[in-house]
């Protein structure tokens, strides 16, 4: 059993705090993705779990052992590095078997386990090559093979796909997911790519400036962002945010446009409160070309500034209350810049955030 517990974990570099007391519980065999913008402390947190970075405060537990003072080799973890960190002077077979050899496994058993791992990852024809003779994707696979061969309690990944091109990244993403279904292990995966986070995670941990902003299942984080930061970070294109005030029982935008207060939020706001209205591009569409036509909505007329046809749908840039707003048109219809269209906002999926704190009004 390998659940991981972070209890008020702090990391300081000299006087500089980069991780500010993180609390996190990761269940046995759970796939957790740490996601956030560059410099938010994801790698640092991961490396503290790995034992590659001293822990300045708090506790890290793997299973029921406090591992704060254990070196990496005693934590029974394995890690895939962003640059793969394959040993250049060893061939693939030796790279895969290195950990087992260090652990003193019998040669026969090393061969067997390396062959198994190579089989799982499709590396069998490459076993005698050196890392220099492999493509990026193959190196990536060797790095994963090296991680699974030792059958550790925990896999740690630090942006393993960021050196691959977009197509290969998608492919490897699927392979990692399949791998996790085959080799069930607790996984902590770091990325700044929200698509990777959404597709891989059992649970997403959104980080920002050394703090956890929100933890939840991908759909939970997507549907119920707790802050404007999460709202814009998860989901692509990002959620539109429009400053507004509650006035006369409606959400009134900067230019006076009134939008009804979404039902489920009406008891959360009071007259005069300054808020931010959040609505995803998928939920603003030209009338008749949206995801859903029923449910509470509001119609506004806007001018198309730019349209990006994506085949079966188009992304439309328009302007509302002086702000750029992105909308989606579902269907193969082409729109032209300058066209004035009536757009429908699906308010059952709209969000309201406090204008000062940026926190969802559902949180009060």
């Amino acid at each position, binding site marked *: 059993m390998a659940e991981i517990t972070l209890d008020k974990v702090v990391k300081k570099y000299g006087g500089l705090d980069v991780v500010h007391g993180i609390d996190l519980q990761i269940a046995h065999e759970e796939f957790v993705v740490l996601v956030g913008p560059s410099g938010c402390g994801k790698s640092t947190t991961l490396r503290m779990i*790995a*034992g*590659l970075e001293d822990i300045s405060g708090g506790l890290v537990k793997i299973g029921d052992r406090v591992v704060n003072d254990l*070196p*990496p*080799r005693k934590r029974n*973890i*394995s*890690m895939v*590095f*962003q*640059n*793969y*960190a*394959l*040993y*250049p*002077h060893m061939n693939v077979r030796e*790279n895969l078997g*290195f*950990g087992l050899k*260090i*652990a003193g496994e019998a040669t026969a058993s090393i061969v067997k386990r390396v062959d198994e791992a190579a089989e799982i990852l499709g590396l069998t024809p490459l076993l005698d090559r*050196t*890392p*220099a*003779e*492999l493509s*990026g994707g193959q*190196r990536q696979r060797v790095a994963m093979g*090296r991680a699974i061969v*030792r059958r550790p309690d925990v896999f740690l990944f630090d942006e393993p796909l960021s*050196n691959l091109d977009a197509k290969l990244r998608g492919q490897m993403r699927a392979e990692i997911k399949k791998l996790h279904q085959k080799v069930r292990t607790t996984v902590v995966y770091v990325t700044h790519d929200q698509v990777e986070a959404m597709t891989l995670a059992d649970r997403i941990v959104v980080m920002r400036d050394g703090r956890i902003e929100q933890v939840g299942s991908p759909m939970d984080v997507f549907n119920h962002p707790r802050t404007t930061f999460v709202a814009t970070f998860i989901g692509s294109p990002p959620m539109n945010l429009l400053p507004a005030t509650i006035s006369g029982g409606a959400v009134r935008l900067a230019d006076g446009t009134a939008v009804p207060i979404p039902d489920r939020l009406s008891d959360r706001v009071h007259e005069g409160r300054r808020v931010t209205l959040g609505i995803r591009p998928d939920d603003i569409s030209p009338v008749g070309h949206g995801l859903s036509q029923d449910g509470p909505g509001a119609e506004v007329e806007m001018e198309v500034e730019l349209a990006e046809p994506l085949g079966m749908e188009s992304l439309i840039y328009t302007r509302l209350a002086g702000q750029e707003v992105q909308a989606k048109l579902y269907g193969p219809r082409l729109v032209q810049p300058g066209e004035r269209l009536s757009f429908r906002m699906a308010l059952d999926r709209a969000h309201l955030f406090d204008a000062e704190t940026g926190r969802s009004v559902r949180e009060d």
Partner: protein
Amino acid sequence: MTATVESQRSKALKRAGLTALTFLLMVVMCVPGLWVVLSAFRPNAEILAKPPVWIPQNPTFDNFRKIFGLGTDQVAIPVGSYFMNSLIIALTSTAIALMIGMAGGYAFARYRFRGKGGIFLGLMLFRAVPGIALSLPVFIIWSKMGIIDTKLGLIIVYVSLNVPFTIWLIDGFFRQIPLSLSEAAQVDGCTRWQAYWKIEFPLARSGIAAAGVFAFLTSWNEFALASQLTRSTTSKTLPVGLLDFTAQFTIDWAGMCAMAVIIIVPALILTFLVQKHLIAGLTFGGVKG
């Protein structure tokens, strides 16, 4: 069409010109050495002949026979002792300089510590001081310590001469090795020590070999300090031994050249043996790119 032919021709011309220039420079550089080697195989008279004789007319091993004191009137020079002294001193000082260089270079490349920049700069500045400038103080201290004319005395001098350079070179090689390799090894079950010996050391081996060759050659060829700190066969090295051929009024050029060849040959052999390492550079295929 003609334009490209033209430009190809001018390119070829340029390449030929460069090759010729390189060859000329090589010749200029090699001639003195070649002269020494050729002169090792001919009698003194031919060496001093005017106009110069290039190809030995009567190639002979007499010069070598003479300096080893084999069956002629020439007073033998204790080449054997000098050779052993040189070898012991150069090998020992190189081994020590390499050990210090590996530890120091690794520390500079991998650890942060107080005064790191200052110490590194100090080492480099020390390199900039010509050794001979320190010869007087060294001589005085060494004689107080009673290690004038001992191998130990020279070994200490050569170690301190070589350490800054080996540290600098080896530091550079360790810096090229991504830290993540050592980290991956530690995650794979190594102690930091094992990670060093199994991963980082093998990858820096070329650099360490290069540093070793340079250190060895420095010690092997050094003359100025050795000539002051050694007196007798217990510690005199080959370059110092060359002076044995100068008498008050005569210089035995032939013997000197023969001995010079004896000095050059091991250095050449060593350089050839490790040239693969010197040139190889490192392949970091395990890391991206």
